[in-house]
């Protein structure tokens, strides 16, 4: 593969190098953390429905497990490369560390396109993957989870195969399972609520009272809806949400300056998070172009939909009033736009911290599975609040102390926690 082209692992390494320099990490620690500790690459022979045998290539990368069992998803992707898996495993290490859960980072996958595979074939791939790696993963060593093109069903097949091999029940081997089959309650709410727990803490340190703030939200999917729900409960006013319109194949922003009503909008939205524009107009919402959500005169922007939404092209359109951007989506801000936000002194709550509610809930799932006792939803959410709150304060304290941009501070704190564990264990 050409080295000149964009390589995600190199990007991840150089990001690490910058932070390592700030932390003045030892050469040994740096060398260890720059690379995954263990990589497994193996073949999975699968009997296809038509009787042929096809051989798939499987991966598992355990970047670092100094803080606890490696944790990370399993991706089914036809163009999977080891570099992508390495980069993602490293990011998982930092993500678990930033919310301070006792897990390391891992990632795995199979080169395949589920679109060209039947359910039976996918099941055989899942079971084949576990057979090949069963000795090197487990509830106490490496815990997989769903990722691109995998879901709860795949996790159950893998769990079943693992338990078949081990002869005992280990629901904590894998997360992302359906509720009732070892899954945790509260997962639907986790990411959206996590965003608002972090936002709430940010408002506190900025000395703003939620009741006096307004927000504009991009998206009306699961994360956005739960974010709107909790923010409104805190007394805030969401004046605009944007969403995809399936019929018009474009997105619109729906604005009501007096504040949107979540239940009202839910009642007129379809399963894709699309809002019925005619009925919205009847309810007093203005229908604006899709990008209008970020031009609103509000205190808070919550991008909770797609990547690269705040970019060089539109960052200048942000209202002067915007004080906080809470990144609910993954990578909603491009580096160029990020630079502008930093100069404008906008308080950015980085995705890496802000949407870590999901991974935290996965951790809770594992904890519940290992103790074989499942919590009520309230308990899950209460513990989530506590985790997110402390994670924010740690990052914010560091940012204040060291005059760091929040995104940098989050990386610094994550990497320093991992480095500390490595040192304490005497690995480097």
């Amino acid at each position, binding site marked *: *593969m*050409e080295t*000149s*082209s*964009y390589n*995600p692992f190199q*990007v991840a390494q150089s990001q690490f190098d910058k932070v390592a320099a700030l932390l003045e990490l030892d050469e040994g620690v740096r060398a260890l953390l720059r690379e995954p500790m263990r990589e497994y690459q193996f073949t999975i022979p699968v009997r296809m*429905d038509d009787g042929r045998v096809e051989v798939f290539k499987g991966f598992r990368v355990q970047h670092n497990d100094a803080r606890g069992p490696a944790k990370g998803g399993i*991706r089914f*992707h*036809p*163009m*999977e*490369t080891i570099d*992508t898996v390495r980069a993602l495993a490293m990011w998982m290490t930092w993500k678990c560390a930033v919310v301070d859960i006792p897990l390391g980072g891992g990632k795995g996958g199979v080169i395949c*396109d*589920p*679109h*060209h*595979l*039947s*359910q*039976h*074939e996918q099941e055989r791939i899942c079971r084949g993957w576990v057979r090949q790696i069963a000795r090197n993963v487990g509830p106490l060593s490496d815990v997989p989870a*769903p990722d*691109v*093109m995998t*879901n*709860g*069903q795949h996790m159950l097949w893998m769990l079943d195969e693992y338990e078949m091999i081990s002869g005992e029940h280990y629901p904590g081997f894998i997360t*992302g399972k*359906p*509720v009732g089959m070892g*899954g945790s309650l509260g*997962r*639907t709410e986790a990411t959206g609520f996590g965003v608002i727990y972090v936002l709430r803490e940010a408002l506190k340190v900025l000395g703003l009272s939620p009741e006096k703030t307004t927000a504009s939200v991009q998206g009306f999917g699961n994360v956005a809806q739960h974010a709107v729900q909790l923010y409104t409960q805190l007394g805030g006013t969401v004046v605009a949400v944007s969403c995809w319109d*399936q*019929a018009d*194949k*474009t997105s619109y922003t729906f604005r009501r300056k007096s504040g949107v009503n979540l239940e009202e909008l839910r009642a007129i939205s*379809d*399963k*894709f998070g699309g809002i019925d524009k005619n009925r919205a107009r009847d309810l007093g919402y203005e229908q604006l172009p899709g990008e209008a959500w970020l031009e609103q005169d509000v205190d808070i922007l919550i991008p909770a939909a797609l*990547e*690269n939404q705040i*970019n*060089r*092209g539109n960052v200048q359109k942000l209202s002067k009033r915007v004080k906080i951007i809470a990144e609910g989506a993954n990578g909603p801000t*491009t*580096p*160029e736009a990020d630079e502008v936000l930093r100069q404008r002194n906008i308080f950015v709550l980085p995705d890496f911290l802000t949407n870590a509610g999901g991974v935290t809930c996965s951790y809770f799932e594992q904890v519940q599975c290992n103790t074989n006792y499942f919590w009520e939803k309230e308990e899950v959410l209460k513990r989530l609040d506590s985790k997110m709150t402390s994670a924010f304060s740690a990052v914010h304290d560091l940012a204040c102390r060291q005059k760091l941009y929040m995104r940098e501070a989050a990386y610094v704190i994550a990497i320093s926690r991992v480095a500390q564990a490595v040192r304490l264990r005497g690995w480097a």
Partner: protein
Amino acid sequence: MSNSRQADDRFRILRERAKELDCLYQVEELLADDARSLPDIFRDIIATLPLGWQYPKLCRARIVCHDEVYEPPDYVHTQWSDAVPIEEDGRAIGCVEVSYIREVPASDEGVFLEKERKLLRTIADRIGQTVFHRKLEKQLREWQSAQREPAANNHHQWMVIVDLLRRTDEKLYLQISRKMLYHLFWSGVKESRQVLNTFGSDFSVGNAESIADGNRPSQKQSRESILEVSDRVFAIAARHLSDAEILACLHKWIQENKLSFLIKAVDSGDTPLDQIIDALLQYRTLAGSEGGLAPSTEKWLLVSLIRRFFSDHADFINLAKRHLQVSDFFDLAPRIIYPAGSNGRLGGKSTGLFLAQQVLRRAAAREPLLQDIKTPRTWYLTADCLTEFLRYNDLGDVNEQKYKDLEQIRVEYPNIIQLFKHARFPADISKGLSLALDEFGEHPIIVRSSSLLEDRIGSGFYGKYRSLFLANQGTKQERLEALQDAIAEIYASVFGPDPILYRAEHGLLDFHEEMGIMIQEVVGTRVGPYVLPVFSGVAFSSNEFRWSPRLKRDDGLVRMVPGLGTRAVDRVSDDYPILISPGQPGLRVNVSPEEIRHYSPSRVDVINLETRSFETIPLDRLLREHGHEIPNLHHLVSVYNQGNIASTSGIELDVTRDELVVTFEGLVTRTPFIQRMRAILLTLRKELETSVDIEFASDGQTFYLLQCRPQYTADEVAPSVIPQDIPDRQILFTANRFISNGRVPDISHVVYVSPEGYARQTSRDALVDIGRAVGRLNALLPKRRFILMGPGRWGSRGDIRQGVQVTYSDISNTAVLIEIARRKGAYAPELSFGTHFFQDMVEAGIRYIPLYPDESGVVFNEHLLNSAPNMLAGMLPEYEHLSDVLRVIDVPGCKDGRILRILMNADLGRAIGFLAEPAVPSEVPPVEVKPVEARSEDFWRWRQRMAEQLALRLDPRRFGVRALYLIGSTANATAGPGSDIDLLVHFQGNQAQREALLLWLEGWSLSLAEQNYLRTGYASDRLLDVHLVTDADIAARTSYAVKINAVIDAAIPLPLGGAVEK
């Protein structure tokens, strides 16, 4: 005479006539009662008869028959009596007599009026006929029972029959003796050969002296000698065959003779349809379902029926006659609505469904999966009902509509709809519709068009006319009005702009369009206030939209939805049907729970009985409110819960709480639905010898076939001819893997992401920008006139390096998405096949082509793309920095007005994109010439096909031709390799036209002779034998003109190209 006296007289006369008539009717009624014995009937007749005479109280009647006397006790023969003999087949067997017991006043006409005498003669006649009929029937019954019990005493019984026939029906006697003679001859009875020689038959080959001299006419046999010969035949039979065998033969031949009326009726082109239908129903009664005809005769009858109701296209007849039986028509015939004088054609849709239904029914004997497939109850309006409707309402001038400007057509169309809706239906059609409604009751119905154009092979004339759903609720009058309104609207659609434009584009404008109508019961079940099928959809035996390279075309494709199939048939931009490939049902388009949920139907088409209308309603509302009423709902839906999706059992389903997603998972995995669908598609494709497209529905219990036709081959998805002579420098690309069929409209712009340029990018932002720029271009460039070409997996959510990051909205206007797989070292990247928005692309008709430029034999002219001026900076200045990787090329602008043409042919597995002159709409009707194979039995078929082709190309106005017929060996299907083609031309032109016509035909004749030589090796100067007849010939029925509308060996009319004035 005073006036009052005159009036009295007239009144008296009228009263007498009424009495006479009444008497006749009563006698008729008595005679018609098959259940009673003749003596009983006679006793009633003598009681009834006097009522018809002037002085009933004084009148007595008696009947003498076969020496039995039937008379009242007080009967006396007086001088005031009148008697008429009763004749049974010309032989007196008794008499009918009336007599006044005492004198009555006599008029000028005598004691009995002339009318009374006539009445008596009529009654005697009828009695004679009835006696004869009963005797025959009795004989028949005896033969039948004799046949059933061969051991029974039937010795010499056949002789009685032969004797009876000889005396009563000489014609039939001769016919049967002739058949017996042939039978004996073929049974190897030597004596029969001598008898044959007596007839001078050709059968006696080898007996030299019996062959008629070539130069001398053979002797005509006298009637007596023929009768004598016939007697000899039976004498021989008696010596050589068993009594049982002779009896069986006689039975069969007499039965065949009885059925010949039907064949005569059907085969003669101008028998009114009602007579055919009557004859068919009579045949049904006579023959029962086992059929009473010799196989060859039955085939003849069958072909005649196929021609009459469906098509006289030779290929179609060949196909249909293999699958149909005469008895199949029994159920069809009573449900046809037609005007007087109808030719009976039902149109393509009706034809296709009827044929498919019979094919599947027969195949069900071998394949249990095909059992219990039903078709909904259907009534048919013949295509000429439209003509009759226009004539009846004096609307004939709308026929000129098609020759107007499109704009004018558009403007006038709403007016035409209203005009039609206010028109009235002729009484016989109205009556038929009323009968249909009686049968349907208050069940919803769909009114479908069934165009004659649809059965023309190779011209996919689909979906251009309307289909209308009717709730069919209310009083009979309301329902009839609604039905007539719907039919009128469908009739009006023939004159609508879209069908006319389509016909103009396909050279079919002059084709005389008549449109049949199908009225079908809507398959469905009552759910709340709605009626809807539990599921329905459309299936194709050839899958032209493959979402995985593992799928083969033959795996087929099903598009299905809950509710009425309209949402599966049409592409609805904001909703999705479920796609399944029956050959590999495990390979689904949508895999992750989110995809499955996203691309699932969200609305459903229903008939609302309360509002009496067709409605589209949100599916979740239907499921929440009435889900528990839907039979086997758990076969339709899966439950989505927190990122997981699973089908459940019916008992676990909670329609009020669960989030239900239509997946048909239960149907696919727990029922034989998919296997059955596969069996249907494979069977139909094999038996109908073409890929088919079917519509189906289920009421939750039964599977219904609603429609079957050759698979949709609109130009854009028909296999394209891949030209071989394009110079290399004009080829942009060729592709040879995973190619579907079709052609793409002329392309004016290419948006090209250079694979090398893309791989060179080091910043993620630049890669993201490329996707965004593509999205902007998508909005700016002319819709469906540009293509996107670029590396790797477009729209992939994985690593952005592996494909341009776009969503569907960024590519929604492109005509084609081309993914380029450049080899990297030893491996070529796997392409996406558009899976990320596959279903969006299918619904929008966007084509997908994967390109493997490094494979041998593949052309990819990058130079052409890299050397053309790049418009990107001009169009999107903000993305100028991407100019080295993203190129926008104005093809006509830089290639001298030429456009990019993309042709795809799945059969060859090839696609090509090349520079070409923009297309000019073709003015010549595309006449399909199919490659033909030389097979021995094909000589007449080939000739017939050629004659049809010739007729299609013949311009009747130019040559003054009224009609063209096929006669002789080709028409009789007996042509051999050296036979010529006999054409009969009904000519109405002048001398110049005559010469031009003959010259034109001469050309055909020469070239057909040459073709025939190449096919068969039989050389001849000419192949056509042309006979011209004029109006005068036809009027005088001279020469060949007698063949036109003849009863036997009639000339077969050939459809002419261009409209012929009727």
